[in-house]
């Protein structure tokens, strides 16, 4: 009886294998593994297909992209790997899941400090970590160091300290000020929080107009998403209800993070994958990044969206992003140590 049942299970499993055959990728297709939300990628994928006739199949894996590609090994159908955080991207390269790309187009479009030394990864767009503030404060300048100032006690909202966007900020602070000062800074911010460190960047804007807090940290493109109304009428109210300041490190610039991509080590469609990356940094591709996603294009001279331009001139902090990626784990531990999220 039991054997028969196990057999039923096996048969059913085999039947499913037959019913759902694997889709072999032909030369005219590429497979994109991305930690970037499908809605944001769709215009870029469609644009690429329109230009080249190459179809893009995609899978959105929020966390665990590295583990999935690693487990698939040499048989992996992945051609392009895309992430929204420098740490995750460098992680892919360090685990040997990417490969160098020789492309004059990419090298020309992406500045040397925004790609890997051996061209194993490329930045496609950048985004700044900015300050959202209540309008009545009329703030015009701000430093990341100010966040720990006791005058903001009970007035700050921020998402989880363990979110990659925040650990990148802490890692940058760590690189500039060292461990002791970073810990003190984190304790200062923790003491200033108006609510638990949780939710998303847009919740910061909503909580500011809801009177829960006065200032908070969020990514720049959310401002564009909210203010343009593409996130709905409610979000437009949140975006219009706050001021946005481009903060700097004391004596430095504004912290930016990147979205970027690499070609998978075992990419079955390597040439097409390279064409896809080249399309993403082309004028057309960069325009979509700016207009649909409200990000800063990586290519010099590519126009940025008017809503983003209105935030003021972005002065990017000179700290190399590889430093931020390197100190990510140490930053995360410090965040735990001060009980930031508790």
């Amino acid at each position, binding site marked *: 009886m039991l054997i028969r049942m196990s057999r039923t299970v096996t048969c*059913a499993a085999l039947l499913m294998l037959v019913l759902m055959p694997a889709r072999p990728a032909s030369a005219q297709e590429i497979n994109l593994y991305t930690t970037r*939300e499908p809605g944001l990628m769709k215009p870029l994928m469609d644009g690429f297909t329109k230009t080249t006739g190459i179809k893009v199949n995609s899978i959105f*894996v929020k966390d665990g992209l590295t583990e999935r590609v690693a487990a698939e090994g040499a048989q992996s159908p992945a051609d392009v790997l895309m992430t929204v955080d420098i740490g995750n991207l460098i992680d892919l390269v360090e685990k040997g899941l990417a490969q160098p790309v020789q492309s004059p187009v990419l090298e020309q479009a992406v500045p040397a400090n925004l790609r890997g030394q051996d061209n194993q990864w490329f930045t496609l767009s950048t985004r700044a970590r900015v300050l959202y503030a209540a309008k009545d404060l009329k703030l015009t300048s701000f430093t990341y160091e100010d966040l720990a100032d006791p005058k903001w006690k009970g007035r700050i909202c921020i998402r989880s300290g363990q979110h990659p966007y925040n650990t990148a900020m802490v890692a940058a602070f760590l690189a500039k000020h060292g461990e002791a000062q970073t810990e003190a800074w984190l304790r200062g911010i923790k003491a200033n929080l108006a609510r638990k460190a949780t939710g998303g960047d847009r919740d910061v804007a909503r909580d500011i107009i809801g009177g829960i807090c006065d200032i908070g940290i969020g990514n720049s493109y959310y401002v564009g998403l909210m203010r343009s109304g593409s996130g709905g009428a409610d979000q437009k109210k949140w975006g219009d209800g706050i001021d946005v300041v481009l903060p700097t490190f004391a004596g430095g610039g504004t912290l930016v993070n990147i979205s970027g991509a690499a070609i998978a080590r075992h990419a079955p469609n390597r040439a097409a994958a390279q064409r896809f990356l080249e399309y993403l940094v082309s004028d057309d591709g960069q325009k979509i990044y700016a207009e649909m996603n409200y990000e800063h294009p990586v290519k010099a001279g590519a126009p940025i969206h008017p809503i983003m331009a209105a935030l003021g001139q972005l002065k990017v902090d000179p700290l190399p992003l590889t430093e931020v990626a390197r100190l990510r784990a140490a930053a995360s531990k410090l965040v*735990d140590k001060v009980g930031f*999220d508790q």
Partner: protein
Amino acid sequence: MVAGLVLAPLAALGVTALNGSEDLWQHLLAYVLPVAVRDTLVLLTGVGLMTAAMGTSLAWLVTAYDFPGRKVLTWALLLPLAVPTYIIAYAYLDILHPVGVVQTTVRALVGVDNPRDFRLPDIRSMVGCIALLGFVLYPYVYLATRAMFLMQSANLLDAARTLGHGRRTVFFRVALPLARPALAVGVSLTLMETLNDIGASEFLGVRTLSVTIYTTWATRADLPGAAQIALAMLAVVMSLVIFERYARRQRSYANDAQHPRPLRPERLRAVPAAAALAAASLPIVIGFVVPALYLAHAAWTRVQADGLSPAIVVEARNTLTVALAGTLLTMVAALVVVYAARLHRSRWSTGITQVASLGYAVPGIVLAIGLLPVITGVNIVLLTSGVAIVIAYVIRFLAIGAGGIESGFSRVPLSVDDAARTLGDSPARRLWRIHLPLTRPALAMSSLLVFVDCMKELPATLMLRPVGFETLATHLYGDAVRGTYEDAAIAALLIVVAGLIPVLLLARAAETSIQR
């Protein structure tokens, strides 16, 4: 074989854990675990007490008493099951936020303009988290205990009544103790759901152990460390489960009456009837009606603006396909495991049952990571075909199926098996002729739970699906991460609606098969 299926990813996690992670535990013990363990325990205790009290009393209310609306309530009380925890958390944060509907109205009523001058407490707190999880998870307890109350012979209860006890005493002295296996199953399901919930807890700012695991892995790229915490957590869960079994060892909950007769509900007079109706409606309103209306409103706004995307039809079909396949295989596997344990009646086979149920205690994302190397090791086609998702569902939800079947089997006396065996029936024939018909309600109800859970499942589906394969849950997540919640509302509403149909159908089927 089934136990092996569950153990494979756990073993893979074990291997990963052995790869070491320097000073992780020192760091965790010093800074993270004290609070994470405390918060997890508070959350589990709160949700456990809340669901046990709500689920059992509601089940008794609609089983032992009759009042207008009772018939509808018996199935409507299941509705909150269709609402995933991450959806209810988001819906209530929006509704109860200072700029949301409720507080805006309240401010208008008391005549305050600025939210800074008057605010209600934030839902993003431990209390908020316990309450929201309680209101969507209580049906696990309700379902299990109601099935038990219905199957309890009225004879036993009548015997107690002839001894001069009132309904209340009968409930506490007879019905409740007899329903203990069902209560244990129901509560342990809610506890495990709570334990491996990441979405709602993280969203509401409660840093549980699961969130800690997630952080260690996702932010610090420390997979071995995450595997170690996951295994440690699993050990705790396992000891709890074993403790509960130990506590009710040697007891028989079988019903020896020859013609079990269901309890006839007692009619309530006007005022108590109205009170009963109100009490039993409240959880439905909070756990289902409000979030469903919220989603419907958001989805409607979206459809008016942009129309309906054709992709969503494909996604709905994908969701149903994997959820159905997952349910079918889970139930077959659960039946094999439970029946094998019954046939052998040995410690070894009950051990296997417990091992097979472990998958439920593992957070979905951890299970997926453990499963990845195992699956690609067998054949990568499993991953590219979508079979991997189904395997993950079986491992993850086996506990629900096995728990339900087991508590159903527990009321069939072993003497019945022995009698049939003396008459020369084979094990397969006994299963087909005796156990399945007798436990049909329990089977139906646990299939329903498994199906709804498969449909709501997110982390493992996200990680193990083929390229280009989207389900409603993955679509919802993609939109929610991006923050276009109104897009997400359509998918969320469809999950709720698709979860409703089986809830209604099976609740009906279960009722009629019991009452016949």
